[in-house]
């Protein structure tokens, strides 16, 4: 298996020289291994470098890269879904720590994954740079002279003619130039070459891989990516404190955040009304008024696939839900809270959960008596013994709010950050309102209802239902570099895979019997019958001007070519028939 690319004969090897800048594989024949120990540090380094930049190692590294990417798709990833990682750690107490040590929860930034692609890119650089120089050299040089034995070339043709050798060669040159070959100057033979773009494409492709890597690195280091839940009528301005959560890269600077903001005016959603996929969302639209760096207001509607682009950031619509607008009066009869309270969806029909916290409530006795409500909201209410209250459709067909009420101390002063969507009911200072028999009391409210709490503790009114939308605000530089690199990769690949680099030689010399012996040969590096086809075209053109000499004896078939076998890959006879 140690055949080289073009090893069909000594002449061919020489003639094929520099037909490509691909490095010769020397791994199999690495002679001199006995004296490896005497290489010395420099020698070792050189040896290491040669190994690293060989095609074989590139191959192995590529293979390793695809292998190494696999665990990241099977093990939950912190960057993709941190909740799942936490669940996994909880469920697998022995495996979890091992995975953590191995970096399996962030495969694509782990040491070993990085090591592979860094080595690959070092190898790539070590490969590309010399190849580029070589290619420039090839562009400046002429196609090599015709080898002595043309009949050893992969494609060959010959005949005798009475035309003058010069005329034959001139005709060949014209034909080749017309077919955009580069033709080397020369007297008794013609050497021509075509398809340099293949090499150029190959280099472009590999260089574009670097562009892609840089774009990816810039994107990861400078990016910021945060979420903001906005209720209708509410707004957002781009500032670190405004985000519900904000992830960012290592080089992110909060002071340099772009100035922009928006207000959510309205939100519209439509759902499948019938069929097996009833309830599946069909469209989401958020009407916003936004301002950018120019400070002026603009109107836009944001759809799921159509983010708002403003000041280098993109604002995506990611999810939505309902918020209840409530008025809470305390024991003194004062309005202790009025406003929207977002509820978070639990299922596809937007059965939602939320809490209403009223820290400023004062009891009948004039002492502080905070109020809290835990609620379940259903846009289309249904109750059954199995599921309890739940929603059967995501649109606001039959909205209802189920509440239980608490009073006492919400525990908000403890200094610990509190989840705004949860009520800490384990807190002993927080008591649930109960009836005379001691069973907790609950209320089912529809918009407009008021629930008066026992013992004059206050009341809550459900004024109306609003919607909220969650926006993801993304700043990621390097996108256009990534796209440019991708396009270069495509162009380079197409050139590299679809263009054939090939050489053609023509020789014409006078023989003793006064005729001219015409010889044509073609050589390509890649696996293609194109070389033969092109040579056939050239033969036809030259033969038209230098026809076979009349009394020519039948050419003996060169080499031992059995004429009775028809290899399958030549269908041209059928095609043209």
């Amino acid at each position, binding site marked *: 298996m140690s055949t080289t690319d073009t090893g069909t004969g000594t002449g061919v090897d020489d003639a094929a020289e520099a037909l490509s800048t691909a490095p010769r594989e020397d791994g199999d024949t690495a002679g001199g291994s006995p004296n490896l120990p005497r290489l010395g540090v420099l020698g070792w380094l050189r040896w290491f470098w040669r190994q690293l930049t060989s095609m074989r190692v590139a191959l192995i590294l590529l293979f390793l890269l695809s292998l190494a990417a696999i665990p990241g798709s099977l093990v939950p990833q912190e960057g993709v879904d941190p909740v799942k990682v936490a669940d996994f750690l909880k469920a697998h107490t022995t495996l979890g720590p091992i995975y953590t040590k191995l970096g399996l929860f962030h495969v694509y930034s782990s040491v070993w994954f990085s090591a592979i692609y860094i080595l690959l890119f070092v190898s790539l650089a070590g490969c590309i740079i010399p190849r580029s120089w070589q290619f420039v050299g090839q562009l400046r040089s002429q196609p090599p002279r015709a080898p002595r034995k043309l009949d050893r070339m992969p494609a060959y043709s010959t005949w005798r003619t009475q035309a003058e050798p010069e005329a034959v060669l001139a005709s060949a040159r014209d034909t080749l130039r017309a077919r955009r070959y580069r033709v080397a100057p020369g007297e008794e033979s013609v050497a021509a070459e075509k398809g340099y773009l293949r090499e150029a494409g190959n280099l472009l492709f590999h260089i574009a891989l670097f562009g892609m890597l840089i774009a990816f690195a810039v994107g990861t280091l400078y990016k910021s990516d945060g979420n903001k839940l906005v209720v209708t009528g509410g707004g957002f301005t781009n500032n670190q404190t405004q985000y519900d959560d904000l992830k960012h890269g290592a080089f992110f600077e909060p002071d340099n955040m772009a100035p922009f903001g928006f207000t959510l005016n309205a939100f519209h959603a439509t759902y499948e009304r019938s069929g097996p996929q009833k309830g599946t969302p069909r469209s989401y639209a958020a009407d916003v008024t936004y301002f950018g760096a120019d400070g002026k207001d603009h109107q836009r509607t944001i759809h*799921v696939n159509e983010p708002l682009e403003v000041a280098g950031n993109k604002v995506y619509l990611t999810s939505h839900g309902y918020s209840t607008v409530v008025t809470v009066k305390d024991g003194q009869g004062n309005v202790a809270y009025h406003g929207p309270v977002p509820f978070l969806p639990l299922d596809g029909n937007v059965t939602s959960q939320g809490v209403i916290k009223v820290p400023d409530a004062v009891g009948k006795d004039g002492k502080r008596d905070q109020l809290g409500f835990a609620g379940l909201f259903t846009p289309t209410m249904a109750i059954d013994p199995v599921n309890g209250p739940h929603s059967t459709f995501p649109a606001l067909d039959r909205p209802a709010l189920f509440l239980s009420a608490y009073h006492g101390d919400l525990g908000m002063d403890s200094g610990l950050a509190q989840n705004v969507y949860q009520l800490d009911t384990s807190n002993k200072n927080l008591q649930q309102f109960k009836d005379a028999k001691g069973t907790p009391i609950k209320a089912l409210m529809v918009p407009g209802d008021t629930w008066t709490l026992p013992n004059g503790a206050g009341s809550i009114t459900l004024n109306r239902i609003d919607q909220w939308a969650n926006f993801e605000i993304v700043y990621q530089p390097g996108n256009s570099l990534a796209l440019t690199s991708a396009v270069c990769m495509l162009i380079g690949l197409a050139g590299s895979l679809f263009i054939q680099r090939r050489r053609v030689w023509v020789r014409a010399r006078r023989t003793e019997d006064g005729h001219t012996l015409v010889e044509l040969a073609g050589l390509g590096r890649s*696996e293609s019958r194109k070389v033969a086809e092109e040579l056939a075209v050239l033969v036809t053109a030259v033969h038209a001007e230098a026809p076979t000499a009349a009394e020519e004896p039948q050419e003996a078939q060169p080499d031992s070519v059995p004429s009775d076998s028809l290899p399958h890959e030549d269908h041209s006879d059928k095609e043209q028939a």
Partner: protein
Amino acid sequence: MNIAAGVNEHMAQISNYLVYSAMAVYTLAFLAHITEWIFGSRSRVGRTARAVAAPAATASAPAVRVKQRGGGTAVLDRPKVVTRDASEDRGATDGPGAAGGSEKGDLYGRIAISLTTLAFLLHVGGVLARALSVGRAPWGNMYEFSVALGMVAVGVYLALLALGKNVRWVGLFLITSVLLDLGLAVTVLYADSDQLVPALHSYWLWIHVSCAIICGAVLHLGALATLLYLFRDGYEVRQAQGRLGKLDSMMERLPAAASLDKFAYRINAAIFPLWTFTIIAGSIWAESAWGRYWGWDPTETWSFITWVAYACYLHARATAGWKGRKAAYLCLIAFGCYLFNFYCVNIFIVGKHSYAGL
């Protein structure tokens, strides 16, 4: 964003009938292919067949000899071309095809191709009816994807045949796998005709997914050829050692290992840029839908793995010592990655690609 008109149930029904009819006709084509192979094995195959196929070699114009693997003569229409190939050379010649020398076998082979064409037309009708029924690109879930992929695979095969390429040998294997694909689609993967979730509403659905389907279909052909290459290669080794088995009559009728290898390489290399484009298009779509062009979502990760695996295969082909069987294994692994991405990742691994419809 407008909601496309609701689902046309009637059209959906027609689509299902058409897909089932196509499957029935594919089954007939499959049987005809089997018959072809059986008759072929009875005729004392290639030895006689090759003599029949030999052209009357008359050429008044000078011949271009292209040195052929095995020293075969390739005859270009007028100026003859004789090739000598650079790749590894065992001297094997291409087999005569499934029918061997049998005229009856050949007749059944032709019937198989006619039936395949008919089934293909029904298949196209099924996909079109599905598209009309939902008023969008007919590849919004795994069922539709599988059906469209089978259609493209058969379409590419028929197109190659129409172009006069010698690909009839793959017929039986292709029809078998398309039947499997459709069988899986209508049983396990079936999803009713319906609209899409908002994230899939985009013209990128047309571009990205259709490219993925074309790539899958063509890579599938490449993988089939590679698989057959491995079998035929084993056969040629056994032949050289003079220990042929009974079933080797089948192998004998396939093209030479080198031809299969070359066919597989060409088809894989030709589609690789489109696969690259598919991933780029997907990234652009992801950027507009989710805010990042690359997020290592399982589906994204596996298309990356598939891409790298094919890049690996192409590199292997360019490196001496890695051609032949080693490269072939890489090709099969790479296609395995494509399949894994489609079946396993969509069904078993939860990611952002809410594609399965299961």
